[in-house]
């Protein structure tokens, strides 16, 4: 990994990605057209991040509706039909509209900077990939207003509930997923082309920062599985509109085929949502522990192993669907295997901390919380892997607890850590430390109050996706709902910190964090619109 000598003077363009005009493009459009047509990786990164934050709040509002109804037993606020739309849209928006675009935004901003490239390999494709998303999600959100309502069959949209018994808007839901899928595939192609071709001279693969590695591997996963999703939803489209029977037993098809195809996409998808998080945390912890990442090579191997194994475990989402015994055993064994490389990564982070010199700036707070809380999510995942026990966990709140732990204090905290870490580079200011600390502690309390009780309500017998529940689950749900309201409200602090930071704050130098390595810290803060127009000389540290 790079420990750069004093940064060479970089030809300055007097602009920042966050505002101001560039001198280097005299006819460059301004205002709305600028953002519509930009091919600059920094501006596109910003667009992705703003889009993702907006989606995060929309998906969050849906979650608040869910938790408000679940605050007490009985049906007080919404009808079950609408409740099912809220749970479905919450999942779809968070997965496809918040988490994935946030990681793409961070990749757009940071991958070229970290490898010393002037931009992504395919800048116009980059622009197109972004603008597909607002189209896709306007379409998706508009289904809520269509006759019959929006998708109401869970974010996993199993057939035949999502085909024969689905509302008329389902065809639009399918179209929106196709559009979002194309965006992901094109983005992934761009990432791979950039990383393989545009590294600074002297930067070999095993010199790349871990964030770049994890994104490289994630991009391959995306290219492998998004087409499978496209295939499944097209088969749905055919069943709904053209009289085919892919998932209809009466016509010779099989509803379980849907599940196999969906989860063959779906399981790599959840690794797509976490590998970049691993990369972010692997950058932040060494910086604030002032110590090199322990076991860089094994972190790369572990990431690759996780990616390969992720194709071999999909049916652990289907343990109760009636698989043959041999299949059940195969998937149980593979799922247990995948825990090993994941655990190894956690050990590596902790060993990086051991005998380091640790400080607790906001990015570090979120990264440390990630390590603890993601690991707890990993433990519940290990329990779920035990197939016979899964017969009692499947489709209960125990599963909801598991995936929310790995996604919220997992992926989302890592994204926020990355934002706090790189805001000085983007804006030239440090984020407001006090507010960020409040955001952190309220979020940690909120997230645990919301999701920890769900382990218990699941074990006690509460199924998923229900708007009303039996009395023995009441206390757990009360606490969860209060936690959810706290967590939701705390995210307003995050918006405040980001907005304030864009506008002003304590000035940050190029090397904003004392012990940060990697190439992005060699360019000024805020990073000029164009960086590394001449490739930097990259010197790797002595082994």
């Amino acid at each position, binding site marked *: 990994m790079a420990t750069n000598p004093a940064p060479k003077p970089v030809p300055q363009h007097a602009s920042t990605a966050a505002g101001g005009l560039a001198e280097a493009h005299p006819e460059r459009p301004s205002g709305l057209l600028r953002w519509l047509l930009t091919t600059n990786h920094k501006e596109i990164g910003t667009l992705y991040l703003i889009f993702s934050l907006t989606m995060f709040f929309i998906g969050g509002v849906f979650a608040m509706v869910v938790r408000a109804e679940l605050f007490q*037993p009985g*049906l*007080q606020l919404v009808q*079950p*039909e609408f409740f*099912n739309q809220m749970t479905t849209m919450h999942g779809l928006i968070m997965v496809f509209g918040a988490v994935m675009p946030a990681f793409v935004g961070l990749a757009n901003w940071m991958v070229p900077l970290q490898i010393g490239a002037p931009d992504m390999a395919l800048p116009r494709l980059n622009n197109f990939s972004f603008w597909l998303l607002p189209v896709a999600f306007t379409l998706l959100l508009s289904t809520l207003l269509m006759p019959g309502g929006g998708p*109401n*069959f*869970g974010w996993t949209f*199993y057939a*035949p*509930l999502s085909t024969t*018994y689905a509302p008329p808007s389902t065809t639009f839901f399918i179209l929106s997923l196709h559009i979002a899928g194309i965006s992901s595939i094109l983005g992934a192609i761009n990432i791979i082309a950039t990383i393989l071709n545009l590294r600074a001279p002297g930067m070999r693969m095993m010199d790349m920062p871990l964030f770049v590695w994890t994104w490289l591997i994630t991009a391959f996963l995306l290219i492998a599985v998004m087409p499978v999703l496209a295939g499944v939803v097209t088969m749905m489209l055919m069943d709904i509109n053209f009289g085919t029977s892919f998932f*209809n*037993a009466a016509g010779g098809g*099989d*509803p*379980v085929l849907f599940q196999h195809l969906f989860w063959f996409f779906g399981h790599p998808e959840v690794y797509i949502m976490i590998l970049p998080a691993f990369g972010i945390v692997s950058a932040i912890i060494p910086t604030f*522990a002032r*110590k090199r990442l*322990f076991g860089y090579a*094994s972190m790369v191997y572990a990431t690759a192993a996780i990616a390969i194994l992720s194709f071999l475990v999909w049916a652990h989402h289907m343990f*109760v*669907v009636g698989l043959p*015994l041999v299949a*059940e*055993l195969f998937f*149980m064994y593979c799922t*247990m295997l995948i*825990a090993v490389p994941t*655990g*190894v990564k956690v*050990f590596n982070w*902790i060993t990086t*901390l*051991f*005998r380091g*010199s*640790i400080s607790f700036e906001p990015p570090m707070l979120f990264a440390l919380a990630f*390590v603890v809380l993601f*690991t707890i999510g990993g*433990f519940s995942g*290990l329990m779920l892997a*035990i*197939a*016979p026990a899964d*017969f*009692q966990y499947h*489709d*209960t709140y125990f599963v909801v607890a598991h995936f929310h732990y790995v996604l919220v204090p997992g992926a989302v905290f890592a994204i926020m850590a990355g934002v706090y870490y790189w805001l000085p580079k983007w804006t030239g200011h440090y984020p407001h430390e006090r507010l960020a600390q409040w955001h952190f502690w309220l979020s940690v309390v909120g997230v645990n109050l919301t999701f920890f009780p769900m382990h*218990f309500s699941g*074990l006690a017998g509460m*199924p*998923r996706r*229900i708007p*009303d*529940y*039996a*009395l*023995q689950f009441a206390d757990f749900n009360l606490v969860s709902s209060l936690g959810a309201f706290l967590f939701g409200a705390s995210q307003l602090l995050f918006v405040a910190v980001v907005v304030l930071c864009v506008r002003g704050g304590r000035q940050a130098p190029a090397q904003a964090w004392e012990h940060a390595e990697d190439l992005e810290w060699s360019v000024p803060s805020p990073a000029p619109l164009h960086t590394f127009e001449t490739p930097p000389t990259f010197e790797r540290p002595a082994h």
Partner: protein
Amino acid sequence: MRTLLVWLAGGLSLAGSIQVAMANGWNMPVGVTELSGNIHSLHMTIFWICVAIGVVVFGVMFYSLFRYRHAKGAKAANFHENIVVEVVWTAIPLLILIGMAVPATATLKQMYDASEADLDILVTGQQWRWRYDYLGEDVAFTSNLGTPRAQIRGEEAFGENYLLEVDEPLVVPVNRKVRFLFTSDDVIHSWWVPDLAVKQDSVPGFINENWVRIDEPGVYRGQCAELCGKDHAFMPIVVHAMEEEAFDTWLADRRAAASQEAQGIDREWAMDELMERGEQVYTAVCVSCHQEDGSGNPPAFPALAGNQALLDDRDRHIDTVVDGVSGAAMPAFRSTLNPVEIAAVITYERNAWGNDSGDSVQPSEIAERLSD
């Protein structure tokens, strides 16, 4: 040393409180079958393994965060690779997992062996109720949510078994191997009773198999565990496990009642009999969509009260209940309800809530209609 003791005390009291909590509705039940006990043991084993790993891992982590604070002037060490340590911490989890895989495999094989059962029951998931068919015994019935809608709406106080009660429970014998066959008439449902550790998806067009041998008589409650539409939360399961002799008696009585009901198809039913039976069926089966007062929830669920088009077309009313409405939410009840129930509920609908048509439908008419 003192810090160590403090940590130990803290850890033990945490473990202790976990134990207490787990015994009081916070944990998976041990259940009433040998398999449910095995599953509970597997669950507890993997749980404690996770706790142990967590204690070690988080222990090292929090120790490091405290001991190696920059603010206290800690100087970073310079190591970043150690082959022995890395091999050990990869090998140990691998061995632990292989160790867990062995009992897990054994339990799974047990779960999959449904051979040589004493009793076979076909469980059919429907939107939004369960149907039970005692194969070869001439006993079949549907099991609907028993909780009054008024409780759900908050107009009445919650009953003790809110959302976990039905109008007719599944009755099974203890100490006999009962095999379940699962299927569905519409979407995927899932039949789950935690105390029996039986959960299996009901897939339309396919048959899944599972089994149970219950050790203790009692009443065991569960719920549908696969999103199946608007009333997914409102189709519970109640299993009443009886001593073998009591079960045999129950089965014989139920068979007799069923055949009596079947005989009832041929005779003439009086209006008040039809209305009484019809109200029972309506409350159990129809209220979730059409409401107690027949007002429905248009346009998805039409009103029945004051529905002139329906009252003017008796044949269409019968067709709707028997064959459902294609492309809409109204299912066909021809295989869910028997001719007496169908005739009664249609009679009730045509006369309740001020409809007062004076019409009645005889079970024999429905029986003939069904044989078309």
